[in-house]
């Protein structure tokens, strides 16, 4: 270290700084400005300022070289350079060749190249003479930093705004919810986006003339036109349950069930279709959840999108009861950040008791309905081979996010991905 301090290194080498590297790749700022001026219809400073990266640098060198002039806020190209010798010089340094002394001086001055392996002490002393802004490797290696007084900075200046790569707010919230379910001991399940009416509706005891199955609400597929039904015994049980209640103790809906209607393919309208598929495969006690995209035949406006994300949790246990459902709801929403919850009667075709939880939004000072819940009807569970209560609850993902972020246009999600919004949105909801 000290040896170095007194030694002079005669061999000079140069290498490109990061800025130099970048210019070599992207072109010099002055070149980019000249080229923009040749093409641009609008040559005003105010317009080009945002259009050209490193605009200030570009303009000052163009002016210094006498290539442009500014009149009335517009930049005029008065002389187009034949060649950009600075670029040639950069390339030479890059190729480890020696550029012309004059150009090298310019490169050094512009901080596009730096010397390496030079006399550290000499360089450091030079820096000291000039006054020191940045701590440099030379100052550290020579130990001369001890003699340096670093001028104060304006700490209000934060530099160029940085945009980190990050998750979309929807995906952040999905992760938050997945974590809550995992913490509560739930297993994640998934299912297909194109679904049969059988699993989307029939297995959930929705009669075949139910309004939710209307063309106006559900996307029906032209391709695939039809799906295959599951095993015959299951289909038969569902059919009978619809028609006369089968062994469920229900009267059924009292109509003739049509297998062809059940075969029609739809874009799944709720994640309950996934729950229905799972119900046939499980043994209690089981706790499952699903997060997935669902689809409704809606025209796009600030309140409606044809697709959104639904979350659903189910608990199947021999002893499960209504108080447990309310307990899970309270626990789930508490973990989601809502301390206060209350419950209202609701209606869903496939649950009885049906509940609508309302949570208290501290930010807004009001109770808001958030999601739905219930215990699956025996007409749903028994044909699937389950003879104990199955608790279920679900909610749309977008509403709580919108409420938390104070958004009132659902098109902010999926339909528009405004980068300014996404780059600016907070990551902790």
């Amino acid at each position, binding site marked *: 270290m000290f040896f170095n301090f007194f030694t002079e290194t005669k061999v000079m080498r140069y290498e490109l700084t990061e800025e130099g590297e970048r210019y070599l790749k992207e072109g010099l700022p002055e070149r980019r400005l000249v080229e923009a001026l040749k093409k641009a219809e609008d040559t005003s400073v105010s317009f080009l300022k945002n259009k050209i990266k490193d605009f200030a640098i570009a303009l000052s060198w163009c002016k210094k070289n006498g290539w442009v002039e500014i009149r009335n806020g517009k930049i005029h190209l008065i002389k187009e350079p034949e060649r950009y010798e600075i670029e040639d010089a950069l390339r030479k340094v890059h190729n480890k060749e020696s550029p012309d002394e004059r150009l090298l001086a310019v490169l050094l001055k512009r901080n596009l190249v730096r010397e390496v392996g030079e006399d550290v002490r000499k360089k450091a002393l030079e820096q000291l003479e000039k006054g020191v802004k940045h701590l440099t490797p030379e100052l550290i290696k020579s130990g001369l930093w001890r003699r340096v007084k670093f001028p104060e900075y304006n700490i209000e200046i934060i530099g160029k705004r940085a*945009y*980190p*790569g*990050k998750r*979309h707010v929807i*995906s952040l919230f999905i992760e938050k919810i997945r974590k809550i379910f995992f913490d509560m*001991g*739930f*297993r*994640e399940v998934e299912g*297909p*986006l*194109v*679904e*049969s009416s059988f699993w989307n509706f029939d297995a959930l005891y929705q009669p075949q*003339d139910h*309004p939710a199955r209307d*063309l106006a609400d559900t*996307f029906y*597929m*032209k*391709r*695939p*036109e039809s*799906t*295959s039904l599951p095993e015959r015994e299951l289909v038969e049980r569902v059919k009978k349950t619809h028609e006369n209640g089968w062994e*469920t103790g*229900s009267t*059924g809906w*009292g109509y003739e069930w049509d297998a062809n209607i059940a075969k029609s393919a739809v*874009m799944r309208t709720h994640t309950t279709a996934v729950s229905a598929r799972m119900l046939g495969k499980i043994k209690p*006690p*089981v*706790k499952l959840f699903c997060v997935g995209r669902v689809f409704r035949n809606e*025209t*796009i406006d600030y309140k409606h999108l*044809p*697709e959104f994300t639904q979350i659903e949790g189910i608990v199947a*246990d021999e002893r*499960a*009861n*209504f*108080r447990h459902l*309310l*307990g*899970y709801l309270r626990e789930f929403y508490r973990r989601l950040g809502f301390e206060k919850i209350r*419950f*209202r*009667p609701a*209606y869903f075709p496939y649950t*009885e*008791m049906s509940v609508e939880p309302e949570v208290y939004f501290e930010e807004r000072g009001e109770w808001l309905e958030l999601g739905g819940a219930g215990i699956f009807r*025996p*007409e749903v569970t028994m044909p699937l081979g389950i003879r104990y209560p199955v608790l279920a609850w679900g909610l749309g993902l977008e509403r709580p996010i919108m409420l938390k972020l104070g958004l009132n246009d659902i098109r902010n999600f*999926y339909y*528009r*991905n405004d*980068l*300014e919004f*996404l780059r600016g949105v907070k990551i902790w909801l």
Partner: protein
Amino acid sequence: MAVVEFDRKDLEQLVGKKLTERDYEERIPMMGAPLESIDEKTVAYEIFPDRCDMLSIEGFARAVRYFLGLESKIPTYTCGRSGVTLRVDSSVKKVRPCISAAVVRNVRLSDEFVSSLMQVQEKLHETLGRKRKKVAIGVHDFDKTKPPFTYKTAAPESLRFIPLGMSKELSLLEICEKHEKGVRYAGILKDYNEWPVIIDSAGNVISFPPIINSELTRVSEDTTSLFIEVTGTSETAVNHVLNLLVTSFIERGCSVESVEIADGNASKITPDLTPTKIAIDINYVNRLLGVNLTPTQLKNLLIKMGVGFDGKHAIIPCYRGDVMHPIDVVEDVAIAYGYGNFEPEVPKIYTTAERLPRIEYINALKEIMIGLGFQEVVTMVLSNKEYEFERMNISVEEACEIANSVSSECTICRKSILPSLLRVLTQNMHREFPQKIFEIGEVVVPDERSETGARSFYKLGCVISDSKVGYESVACVADALMRHLGVRYTLERTHSKTFIEGRAAEIKVGSATLGVMGEVHPEVLEKWSLEMPVAALEINVDSLFDICAK
């Protein structure tokens, strides 16, 4: 969703008690009817599809009366005999087979009654009636008719009558073409050659269900007796709707008389206002609700819902069409108990969390992409042929297609993520560059081997847009992903028209193609109205996952 508006004064008169704001805003909604709006004169509630008996103000008032504890016995309704017969001709069996009817006496048509009658008809048509397809209601001035009646079919041009609201005779066909109701509901009859009508003994058409009544039997302020007919495709539904209507009239002080429906073997007398019984095991109730009610407590709770209990059975009044299973009675108990009075409990059910490996894998990929400085976007699965194929410079391929979309933007399922990402760039041309975005999202392809005829899986797409980007801008991303997943890959030149010729490659693992990347062709950029160069990369995540899982 049915929202019904009630006149507060009329409602309170029918309830027989002055209702407080707290009753309206807090107590009544807990009966299972969310408050939609309230002002000094009117109040509106949402009525759930299972409680059609609350669609009428009379029925709603009845439910409130019980729920607020103003009644201690279940409602019983009596029904005299009118002696009127309605003969059902077998010709209706194919078109609209079911009918029920009643005569209502002592009618005093106050303004409140008329507006309530119109509202309940409309709401029943919309809900239970499935827009009149399943059930349609006709209300007539009984004294203007000449019983007995016949329910039969007629050829569309064979019969003429003056439809309600018009002044001249039209044929059935003309009604369907010209009358406002005809135009709206003719679709229900379009598949049939003969259409249903009800005619009286004088040969007058009194009703053309489910379209319109005749002007002849129009109800006026002088009307004192009504003839109600309910037609439809479901026996249960027409009987239920008739019960809903006539019990509402009885609540208004009218009396009801039955009609004999002469239909061969299926003859019946309607309405049938006797309650039904359903067996209830109190242990079942207690077990499901997690409470410990005595039979007396259970009885006292059920009466708040207008339901009786004899120790073994629940006694369900005739207007409740929703009770299919004992579970429906259990819900009534829960509502009467008060959802707010249950003590929520998280049971100790031991299960372990299980993650889906594929989703965890996707999260690992996201982490790499974010580390490389990419902003995640989340876009729609639904797209259209223009976006997916035309704008990407590729010929139209087989895709999962929607038959009935109301939006021209959403007609197929995407097969690729890249069109979604280019669309995001188009929407962000005024935002700061460089723009580096990615999405790992689902795509759907037709798949005949799959049970649903389609298969959804995940793809990763990423695009970089800046004044200068090139093939290498994404090649290094693909390389970073592959290296960090420990997957050895090769690159092979590809000639997709989406990319500039000579600047695109397929990413291969062994002989399988996992993805594609390159500099997006200016023609594609032009089609998306993009002005900055774009480099793009897409990888099949499910295939990659399968390779990594092996």
